[in-house]
């Protein structure tokens, strides 16, 4: 700040202010007359289908946004960028991870670009912030990642469908599996925010019902865990049969490495939600991640034809191995294409588009893909995986298919601990 500051008196006297106010009031009265000739023009039957993409391209979730985009574009190209007899046009906007930025961008896509539907959304906070906007404006949103449980439950709206997962989904079957195969006394470690809480209640429900006991819960600061040492000490003191954790991105690397550094790896089995050891963080975790077991709706080594083809094509296109987010992007694009084919490119009626969604079924890299009409979320297989060395690289090897899991659509299968 500079020290020399010029101070100037105001130029508006009370009389002038009143005059301005008077004119303003007059204009308010006259305004409705003009409203008849509003500039908004809606309805567009032919021409390309415009799809708005809301993803983070900057900030910590940029990798997720880029993976989803690359796979979406890959699928659209596979079908010749055409569906339902119309060309497909993508309009991409960067949401960062800020709900207010996402709000602005959603409005731009819907109102300025007049897109036919919107896809994307990585962060749960952003999804819940946008929920009322899409609901009020009756615009279709296909969510490609954010797993906030409420969107399939008490905050459900006909206009938001998810191709990814609910936070409940990967954790619930893993709880039962852990109680039956690993041990009965579990310690849970999660970041202190909504997705962490969703993880605890889903895991605890099936774990306790299978005869297990949650002997301790640790909620670490979010978004930055800081020094992991005290949390590792707490785990060592509790000396459980197993640790169940959920971290993603940088925190996942910190946690898994600290777990090995403090000598807990190999002593107390570490289980987690699959995101903690996904392909995006595995290289950074290195050998520290060996032996971590996790539940997720996909794995790189999942043995099916679509997955093999997908993996090859994605690697050719981007030079990298795909991750679960890319799979979700790929499936999102496919859902959109199938939907457009079913309504024959007619996007003028949002209810018609929603109506055909539950009928969409196809072979996805994650196995069979289909929606559960109640939770508006995929009904999908969850795989129990373990990090092992395969051909000199670390990957998740599938140990068991835990079956098809559907979000209950309410909180009946959650347990508060």
């Amino acid at each position, binding site marked *: 700040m500079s020290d020399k500051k010029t101070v100037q008196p105001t130029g508006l006297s009370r009389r002038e202010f009143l005059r301005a106010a008077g004119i303003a009031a007059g204009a308010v009265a006259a305004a409705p007359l003009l409203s008849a000739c509003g500039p908004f023009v809606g309805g567009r039957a032919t021409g390309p289908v415009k799809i708005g993409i809301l993803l983070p391209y900057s900030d910590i979730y940029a990798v997720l946004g880029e993976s989803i985009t690359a796979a979406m574009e890959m699928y659209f190209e596979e079908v010749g960028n055409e569906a339902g007899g119309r060309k497909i046009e993508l309009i991409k906007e960067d949401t960062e991870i800020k*709900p207010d930025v996402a709000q602005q961008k959603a409005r731009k896509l819907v109102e300025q670009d007049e897109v036919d539907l919107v896809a994307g959304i990585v962060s749960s906070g952003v999804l819940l912030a946008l929920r009322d906007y899409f609901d009020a404006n009756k615009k279709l949103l296909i969510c490609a990642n954010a797993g906030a449980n409420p969107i399939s439950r008490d905050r459900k709206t006909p206009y938001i469908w998810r191709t990814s997962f609910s936070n409940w989904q990967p954790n619930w079957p893993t709880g039962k599996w852990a109680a039956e195969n690993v041990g009965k006394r579990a310690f849970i470690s999660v970041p202190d925010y909504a997705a962490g809480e969703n993880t605890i209640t889903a895991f605890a429900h099936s774990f306790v019902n299978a005869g297990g006991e949650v002997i301790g819960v640790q909620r670490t600061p979010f978004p930055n865990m800081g020094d992991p040492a005290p949390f590792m000490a707490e785990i060592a003191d509790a000396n459980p049969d197993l640790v169940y954790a959920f971290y993603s991105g940088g925190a996942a690397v910190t946690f898994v490495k600290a777990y090995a550094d403090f000598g807990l790896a190999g002593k107390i089995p570490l289980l987690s939600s699959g995101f903690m050891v996904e392909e995006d963080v595995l290289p950074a975790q290195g050998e520290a991640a060996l032996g971590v077991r996790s539940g997720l709706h996909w794995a790189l080594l999942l043995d099916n034809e679509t997955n093999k083809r997908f993996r090859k094509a994605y690697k050719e296109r981007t030079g990298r191995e795909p991750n679960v987010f890319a799979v979700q992007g790929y499936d999102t694009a496919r859902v959109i294409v199938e939907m457009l084919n079913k309504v024959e490119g007619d996007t003028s009626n949002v209810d018609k588009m929603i109506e055909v969604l539950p009928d969409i079924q196809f072979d996805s890299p994650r196995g069979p893909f289909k929606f559960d009409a109640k939770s508006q979320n995929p009904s999908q297989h969850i795989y129990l995986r373990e990090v092992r060395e395969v051909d000199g690289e670390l990957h998740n090897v599938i140990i068991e298919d835990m079956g098809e899991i559907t979000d209950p659509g309410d909180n009946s299968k959650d347990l508060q601990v």
Partner: protein
Amino acid sequence: MAAIASRLARVRLQFAQRRTWALLLLAVVAVLYPYLVRPYHLSLAIEVLIFAIFAMSLDILLGYTGLVSFGHAAFFGLGAYLVAYTTIGLTNNLAVTLPVVVVGTALAALVAGFFAIRTSGIYFLMVTLAFAQMLFSIAIRWSSVTGGSDGLSGVSRPAIGVGPLSYTFDSRTSFYYLVLAFFLLSWWVLRRIVDSPFGWTLRGIRENEQRMLALGYNTFRYKMAAFVIAGVFAGIAGMLLAQFFRHAAPENLYWTTSGQVMIMLIVGGTGTLTGPILGAAVIRLLPNYLSTYTDRWQTVLGLTFILFVLFAPQGIMGLIQRFRQRGERREHSENRTS
């Protein structure tokens, strides 16, 4: 060449003298705006007006009193959460929600101010930052009340009146007028405040607090009052944002929000009240347009800030003033020679 320049200068001067008319024209455009543009631009205008209130409120502290607060988002976010909580749990009637926000943020500002104002300079900055981050932590962790990291969604638009005589600002156009009314009222009130003897006392404190003390002013009380006023108007801005987005997010409390509003002041020009309005417009609109054209929009934005800090340290208002003074000077010399 000189003749053209002098004529230009004269036009500039005349324009300055006709500021009232320019303002009137602006008022008319503001009122007719919803019927002139697409709905998206209307929502951008709503955002700009809301952030303009927020930025003006910080100007009272930073620009007029010389208190560099780096935690102003505390009151902005608090306003958002208070209205969200009240609206979801009780009513969306402004007769209830507005007093809740005003009283709530005023009390919070009293408490925070009581501690913060005992310090100055970098310490004041740190205390205010800490206060805002503390509220952010509460918002993230006390999820049964605040919704945790997901925030509080399902905030309906405000209403006024009772029973059959009630009106809800549901349409975007009506909400725009509500925000415009709040903006004009805030602008008018804050103008009156900074032009009052109280406002001049604040400037005195900014320039030389020791001297104000020697003159017998209880500067603590004055600074406290400025802190509370700034807090309340920030709270009102936060309230409007939550009602507009139908959502209160923990990001509203985060230090990046405090930083953003401070940048609005720096870009617009501190201690002018008008500058922050222009700054709010630039900072809210520029990334929006830039990010459509380039993925490297943050670089462009960063360069813009650097250029401002280097070449226009007094912001847009400083530029305008320099421009105007040059015109006056030229006019002056012109008169002398002829």
